[in-house]
């Protein structure tokens, strides 16, 4: 087995840009992604939105259409692409465990770039496991990949740019939006960051434009929503909440929840790369140098998996990582890297200037970070916030012990849907910062392998 120069995990904007850049500099590159087509989350299905579906571009908007160029440049490069391939292991020695066609195998690389992007932050509310409740990004993925929209009345609830973007896309597609419920936006806290977001260019105008288009369509909007719950017998029937002190109930067939996105750090945590808690984004991210290098030799991280920066920042971060890979493997020297990457470094920094404003404007609501006792926080094992607090009372001082007490995080999602909530609840119960409480020890395989799949590994 001969080693490839650069193995990239994730075919989103960061991974695709890195692959094209590195391949153009003569590195042998392979991009692994568990989806069947390139694009990542933001540009999901971009190559399929053509022919009869070309009209969907009008619904999806210009930010989505921008992905065409990113994917085309990747396709035009010599970079290899392994779709429908899950990377379940990255070792310190830069061997990757992959799963393809029902068989596990190992790949060797001289360098690894983790570009696994983001996940939506969990939104634990009463009733969030009912069929008919989904994450907003899930509904959006259906629109991108399959041109599907909700058939019946839909309620959008939570906060963050993606929620408004989805609302605007639904408006354009003629979806019946019963209400948009905002769980709180902190305009005052965000104000000091206003000059920076203006300098970052485009972000404010884009956001205001989305909000205006939703308002103009007459979508009922409630602000400062609290006590959000999904109700129904075996299936969502209505959404209940209070807004401005008034209790309301809105019948709906679908509830789309959203509270922003967080770095998908699972793969790096399993190595383990060093991670830190980011208070402003209330999530973990790997500790990296200016070129995206982690504390483990030869393993770098770029894009939203390195901390949320958005798709445009991800493209530049990917290119920067591509130049750095070429330098590390001796294709170009440090001076050439600096010269070639200068434009991307400047653009990357400019895009990141928008984050403090967005992070401050859309903080995850406390009731959703630290839910009430009766709310189920671990969906796989059906463990409530109250059971987690009980485990803390019995002496559990961290997520790993609480896991042993309660089985949280022991299901197939391996803590992706509960990890942040568990850390937040424990920190809150002990009166400690989340950084001190820590998170689950993540172990490979970061996605379940079957006995038969693993048996193929010699």
């Amino acid at each position, binding site marked *: 087995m001969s080693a490839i120069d650069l193995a990239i995990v994730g075919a989103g904007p960061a991974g695709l840009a890195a692959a094209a850049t590195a391949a153009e500099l003569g590195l042998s590159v392979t991009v692994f992604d568990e989806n069947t087509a390139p694009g990542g989350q933001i540009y999901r299905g971009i190559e399929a939105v053509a022919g009869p579906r070309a009209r969907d571009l009008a619904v999806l908007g210009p930010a989505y259409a921008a992905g065409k160029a990113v994917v085309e440049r990747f396709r035009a490069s010599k970079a290899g692409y392994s779709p429908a391939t899950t990377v379940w292991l990255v070792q310190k020695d830069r061997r990757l465990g992959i799963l393809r066609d029902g068989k*596990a195998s190992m790949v060797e690389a001289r360098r690894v770039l983790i570009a696994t992007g983001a996940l939506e932050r969990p939104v634990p509310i009463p009733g969030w496991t009912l069929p008919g409740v989904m994450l907003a990004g899930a509904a959006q993925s259906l629109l991108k990949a399959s041109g599907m929209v909700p058939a019946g009345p839909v309620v959008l609830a939570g906060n963050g740019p993606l929620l408004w973007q989805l609302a605007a896309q639904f408006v354009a597609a003629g979806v019946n939006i019963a209400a948009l419920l905002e769980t709180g936006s902190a305009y005052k806290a965000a104000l000091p960051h206003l000059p920076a977001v203006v300098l970052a260019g485009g972000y404010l105008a884009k956001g205001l434009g989305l909000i205006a288009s939703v308002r103009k369509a007459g979508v009922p909007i409630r602000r400062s929503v609290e006590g959000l719950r999904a109700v129904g017998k075996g299936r969502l029937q209505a959404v209940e909440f209070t807004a401005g002190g008034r209790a309301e109930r809105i019948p709906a067939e679908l509830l789309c929840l959203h509270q922003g996105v967080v770095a998908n750090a699972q793969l790096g945590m399993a190595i383990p790369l060093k991670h830190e808690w980011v208070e402003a984004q209330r999530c973990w991210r790997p500790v990296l140098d200016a070129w995206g290098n982690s504390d483990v030799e030869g393993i770098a991280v770029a894009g939203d998996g390195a901390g949320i920066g958005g798709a445009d920042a991800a493209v530049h971060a990917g290119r920067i990582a591509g130049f750095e890979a070429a330098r590390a493997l001796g294709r170009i020297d440090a001076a050439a890297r600096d010269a070639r990457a200068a434009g991307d470094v400047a653009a990357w920094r400019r895009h990141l200037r928008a984050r403090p404003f967005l992070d401050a404007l859309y903080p995850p609501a406390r009731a959703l970070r630290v839910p009430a006792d009766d709310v189920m926080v671990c969906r796989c094992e059906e463990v409530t916030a109250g059971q987690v607090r009980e485990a803390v009372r019995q*002496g559990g*001082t961290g997520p790993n012990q609480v896991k042993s007490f309660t089985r949280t995080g022991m299901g197939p999602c*391996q803590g992706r849907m509960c990890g942040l909530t568990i850390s937040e609840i424990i920190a809150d119960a002990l009166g400690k910062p989340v950084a001190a409480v820590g998170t689950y020890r993540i172990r*490979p395989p970061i996605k379940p392998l079957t006995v*038969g799949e*693993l048996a193929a*590994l010699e």
Partner: protein
Amino acid sequence: MSAPGDFDVIVIGGGLHGCSAAYHLAAARLKPVVLEKHVVARHASSASAGGVRRLGRDPAEIPLAMASIEMWHAMRATLGDDGEFRATGQVRVAENVDELRQCEARAAQVRALGYDHEVVIDRKELRRLVPAVAEQCIGGLYTARDGYAFPFKATTAFRLKAEALGAVVKEDTRVEAIERSGERWLVTTNRGPFRAPVLVNAAGAWGAEIARMLGEEVPIEPVALMMMVSGRMPHFLDPTVGSMGRKMSFKQMQSGTVVIGGGHRGRVDPLTELTELEFQFLGESARTVAAIFPLMKHAPLVRCWAGIEGFTPDELPIIGPSKAVPGVFHSFGFCGHGFQLGPVVGSITAQLVTGGKTNLPIEPFRVDRFAGSPPQA
């Protein structure tokens, strides 16, 4: 107690053995303190497969294992919590005639020692006990009153009962130095000094480090033993199943998940206490499982991990008084099979502390048995 740092016994290590010792000491009306550098059950005692197994034990361990199984059966009564112990039996399957002969020889050996807990079972009995077993399995060995428990919960059960009886557990407290001060031991930790006339060394894979602080050299190799667990499966298995010819331990837990071990080794860095999994060995483990339990082919393995355990050259633990200094009792290096022995070894240690002797034969486990043996190549 005079000063807050004063105890009757200092127990180093908050694993199953430290917690069991603390419980038995507290039950004997002494005041022990358990010093644990991380949290209780951070290492082997939560990573463990939790097999409560007498089946196949070294003859030297059988008397202890026989006493311990009674304590497992009485655990709910003594501790108020059974650590999810389930006495569903242990089976070792034979896949060919050779292995079946080994079963017969083993059963005869155990009978000759005066025990009758290991019995040979035939093809039909094997299928009655383990309906899901593969066609090529022709029989095996069986112990009816063995079973499994949930390691974290069993360790916690000892800890909580010990605390209820007056023991103190100090987590995040690392023993850094030990010195004699008059009639007592002065133990220095990152959280200040502790003093007591008696020390119990239950530091697991790090037991030799503690022994070294006392001037006693013990050859211990830290080993990372790897485990895998499946998602919840439909109920198909009650006993814990091992194999005569292959590395496998296999059990379905109360939740429906299947816990798979067998002694495959990962990599370990005892300093950072980090382990790395060796997936080619887990691949072999998966092939073994698929061969003996064909219905597992599509079972998802949701987590793998490794736990650090101390191994001695003869794969028997260190139990009993220090031979170098007074007032120190060892209980460490359980070589991957100390879970079942947890209850009894804690009581042995308490007997040694309170009365200087025990009625169980612990001579084979004495700490100085490797002294003077030729150095390992």
